[in-house]
């Protein structure tokens, strides 16, 4: 009993000579990994088009149901969110939304400085979320891979696609 107490005191004493873990935040910033799950952003594709196609998968995956959006279409049939809202006062930064997203649009980034005095200010709209960058996953443009023509590529000109079938031909 006595011995273990003395040992503990000794160990604690030795720590005084170790390197310090505590940093002087906010003067000093923590260095975070790129895949750290913090503030959520909506990214753009390599052609700087909005990546989000309004598929609602992130909203469905979210365990606290804090994502709400409405899909709409431009004149070429390209789908994008008319509004996109995240209630960060509910978000638990689980990253399920990012995992569910088929287009790499929604991403969690290493930024946690989101505190607000007023809870209402934790509600982010699309203009607060959309950034001018591809984020962590550069190079991917969903509309070039998808089959439909939404003004990004014509029918049958996407990656790994044959040209449209001539239905008047009987040739194999």
């Amino acid at each position, binding site marked *: 009993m006595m011995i273990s107490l003395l040992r503990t005191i000794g160990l604690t004493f030795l720590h005084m000579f170790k390197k310090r873990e505590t940093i002087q935040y906010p003067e000093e910033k923590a260095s975070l990994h790129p895949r750290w799950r913090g503030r959520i952003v909506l990214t753009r594709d390599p052609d700087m088009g909005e990546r989000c*196609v*309004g*598929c*609602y*998968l992130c*909203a*469905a995956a*979210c365990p*606290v*149901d*804090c*994502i*709400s*959006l*409405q*899909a*709409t*279409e431009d004149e070429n049939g390209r*789908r994008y969110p008319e509004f996109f*809202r*995240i*209630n960060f*006062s*509910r978000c638990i930064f689980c990253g399920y939304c990012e995992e569910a997203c*088929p*287009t790499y649009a929604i991403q969690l980034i290493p930024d946690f400085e989101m505190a607000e005095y007023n*809870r*209402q200010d*934790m*509600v982010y*709209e699309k203009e607060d979320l959309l950034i001018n960058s591809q984020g962590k996953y550069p190079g991917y443009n*969903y509309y070039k*891979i*998808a*089959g*439909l*023509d*939404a003004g990004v590529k014509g*029918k*049958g000109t*996407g990656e*790994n*696609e*044959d*040209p*449209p*079938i001539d*239905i*008047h*031909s*009987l040739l*194999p």
Partner: protein
Amino acid sequence: MATIYIDHKAYEVTPGKNVLETCLTLGFDLPYFCWHPAMGSVGACRQCAIKLFKDEDDTKGRLVMSCMETVKDNMYLSVEDPAARAFRAQVIEWLMTNHPHDCAVCDEGGSCHLQDMTVMTGHNYRRFQFPKRSYKNQYLGPFINHEMNRCIQCYRCVRFYKDYAGGKDLDVFAAHNHVYFGRAEDGILESEFSGNLAEVCPTGVFTDKSLKAHYTRKWDMTMAPSICQHCSLGCNVIAGERYGELRQITNRYNGAVNGYFICDRGRFGYEFVNNINRIQQPLVRAQIPDAADKDSLYRQLAKILTKDTTIGIASPRASLEANFALRQLVGKENFYQGVSEAEAQLMRNILLTLNSGHVHSPSLKETETADAVFILGEDLTNSAPMLALAVRQAIRKAPFEKAAEISIPTWHDAALRELAQEEKGALFIAYPTKTKLDELADKPLHLSPDEIARLGYTVAAQLNTNVPAPEGLSKHSLKLAKQIAGILKKAKNPLIICGTSLFNEAIISAATNIALALSGKEKKANLSFVIPECNSMGLAMMDAPSLAHAMEVLENGDVDTVVVLENDLYRRGGKGEIDLLFNHCRNLVVLDHLHNETSNKASILIPVATFAEADGTIVNNEGRAQRFFQVFSPKNENFRESWRWLDEFRQFQNGICPEELKAPENLLAEMAHLMPQFKGADTVAPDADFRISGQKIPREPHRYSGRTAMLANINVSEPKPPEDHDSALSFTMEGYKGMPPAPLIPFFWAPGWNSGQSVNKYQAEVGGSLRGGDPGNRLFPEISVAELSYRNHIPSPFIPSPGEWLMLPLSHIFGSEELSIYSPGINERCPKPYIAINRKDAKDLNTAENDIVQLQIQDQLYFLPVRIMEELPQGLAGIPYQIPGLTGISWPAKGTLTKGNT
């Protein structure tokens, strides 16, 4: 009963069905694509493979397509057999080699049969590295979107569109792995049932274009069991809402009514609910500003709603609850049907027959089993679309009768069609113009309304010599009548269809005579009535005097206040007479959801809920009372149910305090008590306090998203969700997760089955009734309860009178109905006003096709382009019934035509 063994377990099943549907009934999750419960099997997709063993000792077995095997006693099967599983996974993998990477932008996603089946077979990783096939799409009109890349060649679309619904303009083109499902060229799909493609197609090739405009996934919608409001058949539908807007109508299976399908008017006509023309606020027109809050509205109403000087005008498109609440407010003596005397008389004639119990008014399902059909004076495709589809099935399936003799099972679609070839059941249609069903008819007869009635009387007289027969018939008509009578007499299950569309009572009487003459002691003949609106039957059963009588009391000057319930009276009579009616009333209180000509005249205008925001009960043409449930709680608190407003107004008269307000079921119970003819209407659905394990039935799927964000822009603290005190459904996703009772099914979903195909799990037997019985109570007696003698008002032969035309109201599926016309798609399909006349008449008038003629009906003048209809008898002039621009006519009508100068 037969005993079959699936994976070594014994099951008692019905013999004669196919193995696939039997497995699904037993609860197995067996994937399939090409089989459809309403269309049978063709064995095309190879997805439903299972192992069939010779006998108990056979361990090897062979792979068979379960949809093509008949259930026999002592069958040994395996669903779980590794070879069968591998085969099914392989088939999906092949199908997916060409499937585009579209799910994220595909409207089928989340209710996609292909997604479900892919997950079910375990195919989750794409191994195929080669390029995918691609297709160009087509423009198919305002209802259906086309994205051909997603096709898996199951052929369901063409089998539905062509074989089942009789469409001509959708087909399969090209060959081998290039097959293309579409039209010969871009253009609007002609079929009135094209919307069903969105549900029949297991993928996202055909999807609902109206949904696309405000796209929402199935899991994100608040849904409720509802009833279509756009004709008298009362098809069951599911209505879905998101963000306070009605977003989609899908089919709600009811084995006795609409089965798996609905028509395009029903599917796409919902957008009136979201229309900007909605009445948003109570208006008291005498005050400035006219927008009123509840207090000032009630102050005004208290002044004018005095008991003895108020009359109420009811509506055939308002629910029983609303109409009854009005009757309670104004009193039985002051309660009028809001329909013309002509329409009220037609309905009285129909009710006389239905109340007697001498004939059987068949459900749509029963209609499909008729083997000889005689249609008098109805263009079903336009006036009761799903009845036309049901008749089509009856005619198409009649020759399948003999299949049993050569042991072809009833589900073997290809073989049955091969057997039937061009053969079909007997169908006679008598209508002044061509109709879409004419192509199936033995003899389409294009006759004037009175001649149709005379033919009907003659047929009846041929069947029974006690029936009065018309005189002075031509030999030709007599021969024809004999032929029809002969066929009807021989038929096992003859069906007579007539209706109110032509405003000709003699037709209804003649049809009734035929049905009575066909009815024997042991079997009653089927007689279907097509009636004008969704609750015309319910209103007529209230047995109140018509508008003409309301007009009389108004003219006498004893009335101060008229309360009009959900009714645009300018659709009920001539513009002049309705104007006069309104001039006679000092205070006009109108309750409605859309602004219209009548609401413009209101001194007090009160906004009410549409079917999507209200609970209610309506009675369809067969006399089936059906309940529709509120889908969502509207943002605008003024959108209250008519019955709630009206019930509340009772406080002004007899000091009832609003707390005593009735729930809909109490209103109905009171109604059934006061009017015994409605006994049964009060027990259509479980009460508001019905619970399963203490829980309500959730209107939202368990994956409903966005609850903590959708209103966060207004206030970050979520409001308490709205509560529903009127029904056993809740407005949230919390509640009982199992199988709800049939009248309360808000949506179809089962684990692993996200698409509408999950309805299999809700049926007692696949393709049969819902578990616990199909919802709806029939109100008419099934046995004869009153004497009914043959009718005897035979019209004299129709002779065209020079200078005066008999006006024909031509129903149009898109346009003739008041509410659906507010949907942009329906509006686009609505015909432009025209006048149809015979070529000879046109020549006499010195006009050609598209020339403008001037039409005078009553006090109204119309300038209409001529459409020449060869088949139209002379002396008749048809105009589209009640389309915008052609309302304000008192039907039946005569008109004069002169060559116009635009």
